[in-house]
């Protein structure tokens, strides 16, 4: 084996012998040896980092996760703890350990833009790792630890600059953004050299089992076979699996997943309620009219448009109106125009929003802080107006807010307003442990989005039980969404592992 020799001590010593000096202090000489002895890594296994990290209270499951990744998974893993258990801390700990052991020096951390500053602060303050946030023109060759937004990294000229670096470790936060192998970011990460690599996501499967295949193949190509063999074994139908046990075992070889209940910490329970809502007759009539659109004209036969409209109708007339209005701008025939006009007329005359009334009821009963999630900006605005007219103050939030605006909104919600109304994209990167009620005003197709939403509230530091209200209007598309969510949760549990309740359990 090759023995590398480091040090120019021999030359220095010879020189001092020739000139009989200058000689160093005996005290410093002894101190230097003692320091080395203290910092020595006496064993291949075990963690050195925890004793150095005095600014952080590590939890047992976090230390265990780091140790598993380093000793059993050889430094390549998916960290898939449930939301709020500290995946960032686990990643920081692993990175620190490798840095102390002198195995990793250069690290690239890819994150959603909104989390960039949070990572930089966390690494610097808690882990004493001098990380830098990448901005345009940051000379990346001069910095060892770089935190970069995924959207920036995948584009020229940044991607080329990254390829030129020789990173020892790649960390990707919110890695479910890589579930689609046809995207630019997937391709970018695939061609990146990944010596040590951590993928962080609470939701390694969002829709179907192929997502985990692509995620694992990014990390460790071949671990789940190649595409053909995988497809042959697991793809009878996309959402139900035969070899599930085998697959689960393989996945667990590259994945660490802590659940709230195995952390040894006492967690507040989440109580999930499905709240059925009934349309008024007038609302029902408009809903059915929209359903008939596809027979009126071929341009509505696209199921996407239809589904969007139906979902919007379940949300608010404001959201529906906006989409219909957009359609009117397109070149459509007079007959089609007439029909849409009729719907819009009926919409304008609707006086009651049954779902909003239900929300009011929940908010009043809760008599406490409440977060409402909706998918539509128009609904968001409507709800604020509606609640205000009923004497309830609220504040709006969405994912495009800057860091300082987020903090401001959080502050307002904490100290002034009873209700926070957030759009979907507000699901990530804001922590609201002081709130105990979450209303899912409309349901997304993807159960993990629900999990992300709930995770804003049900996380470390929550001191009371958390109530989740999933609103669904009877005999509409929302009923179908509920069913589909259920089957997706089933796939997740079979391949990845159990989930905390997202939907109300069936009796």
């Amino acid at each position, binding site marked *: 084996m090759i023995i590398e020799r*480091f040090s120019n*001590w021999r030359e220095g*010593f010879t020189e001092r012998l020739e000139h009989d000096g200058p000689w160093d202090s005996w005290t410093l000489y002894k101190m230097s040896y003692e*320091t080395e002895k203290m910092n020595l890594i006496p064993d*291949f296994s075990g963690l050195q980092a925890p004793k*150095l990290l005095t600014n952080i209270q590590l939890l047992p499951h976090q230390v265990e996760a780091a140790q598993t990744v380093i000793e059993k998974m*050889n430094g390549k893993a998916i960290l898939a703890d449930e939301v709020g258990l500290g995946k960032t801390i686990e990643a920081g700990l692993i990175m620190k350990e490798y840095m102390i052991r002198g195995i990793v020096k250069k690290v690239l951390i890819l994150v959603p833009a909104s989390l960039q500053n949070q990572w930089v602060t966390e690494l610097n303050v808690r882990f004493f790792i001098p990380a830098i946030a990448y901005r345009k023109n940051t000379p990346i060759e001069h910095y060892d630890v770089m935190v970069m937004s995924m959207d920036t990294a995948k584009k020229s000229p940044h991607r080329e600059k990254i390829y030129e670096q020789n990173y020892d470790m790649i960390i990707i936060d919110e890695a479910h953004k890589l579930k689609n192998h046809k995207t630019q970011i997937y391709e970018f990460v695939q061609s990146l050299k990944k010596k040590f690599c951590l993928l962080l996501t609470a939701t390694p499967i969002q829709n179907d089992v192929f997502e985990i295949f692509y995620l694992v*193949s990014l990390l460790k*190509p071949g671990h789940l076979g*190649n595409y053909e063999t995988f497809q042959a074994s697991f793809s009878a139908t996309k959402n139900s699996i035969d070899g599930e046990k085998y697959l689960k075992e393989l996945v667990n070889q590259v994945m660490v997943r802590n659940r709230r209940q195995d952390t040894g910490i006492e967690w507040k329970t989440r109580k999930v309620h499905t709240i059925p809502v009934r349309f008024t007759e007038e609302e029902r009539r408009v809903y059915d009219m929209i359903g008939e659109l596809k027979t009126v004209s071929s341009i509505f036969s696209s199921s996407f448009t239809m589904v969007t409209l139906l979902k919007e109708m379940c949300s608010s007339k404001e959201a529906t109106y906006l989409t219909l209005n957009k359609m009117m701008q397109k070149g459509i025939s007079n007959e089609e125009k007439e029909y849409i006009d009729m719907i819009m007329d009926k919409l304008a005359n609707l006086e009651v929003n049954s779902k909003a009334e239900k929300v009011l009821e929940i908010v009043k009963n809760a008599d406490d802080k409440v977060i409402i999630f909706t998918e539509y900006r128009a609904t968001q605005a409507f709800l604020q107006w509606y609640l205000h007219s009923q004497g309830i103050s609220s504040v709006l939030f969405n994912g495009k807010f800057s860091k300082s605006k987020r903090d401001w909104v959080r502050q307002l919600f904490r100290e002034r307003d009873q209700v926070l109304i957030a759009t979907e994209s507000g699901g990530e990167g804001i922590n609201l442990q002081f709130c105990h009620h979450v209303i899912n005003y409309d349901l997304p197709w993807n159960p993990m989005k629900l999990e992300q939403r709930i995770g804003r509230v049900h996380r470390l530091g929550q001191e009371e039980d958390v109530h989740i209200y999933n609103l669904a209007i009877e005999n509409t598309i929302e009923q179908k969404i509920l069913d589909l969510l259920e089957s997706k949760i089933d796939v997740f549990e079979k391949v990845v592992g159990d989930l905390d309740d997202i939907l109300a359990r069936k009796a």
Partner: protein
Amino acid sequence: MYAEQIHEYLNNFFKETNCDILEDEGFLLSVQLTVDMDKRIMNRPFYWQYIEATNSEPNPARLNLITDRSKMQTPFMGEMIHFGSGRLHQIFKTTKELGSFVKMYHSIDQNLENPMLIPFLCVNYKVSYLSDQTKEVLYSLGINLINGQIEDHFHEFVSQQNLQSTMPKNVYCLDFIIKPARGIERLDSMIQQIIQNDDHSWAEEAKARWEKELEVLNYFYDGVEEKPESYEVEKKALEERFNPRIKVEIINGGLFYLK
């Protein structure tokens, strides 16, 4: 390293490097740095460039270091120092730079007749075994420059002795028979021998892990005629991750005249 140990370490370090200790409360330390020490531990090369270019009056920093916050009673502006903080590591590094080469003599009882000192050469080595895991071992080897005998744990021995940096009076120091340069070579080959005789199952295990992961990778691209670049990239990454190697580093060393 506990708070008190760090405190003691800093205290010794600044005393030894001629920095004035202005205040020492046992949990906080106020130190006036010398110009040299400011340059070494304050990370402000541009300031010093500017001072030197303009011939201005240098103003080396005064550091207020807090080693144990829990003992603080009044608010005090200062820098928290703990094991793991950047400043402490800079100080460790400086200690290493300023404590690399020594020449020391046994202190001699003046009543002895014909006292005589024998020259020894000591080198302190750090050996690292590296793959995707690491282990480090320290060896302190000393060679008798008269008869060539080599001993391990040399540092442990000399650090217990009463030594001084100047030659004691009325003492006769034997001239070395083995030249120090030759001594270093002997110690270097000794360390090589020690490494060779060590248990290297760690390297075999690393190679086995490497082999296994390579198989997985090959399986992914099985049947692909023209393998994409990402295949080669992954393969290279595996090599860098698992390929076992050994690193030998010298921490410090010196010439010792002992009884």
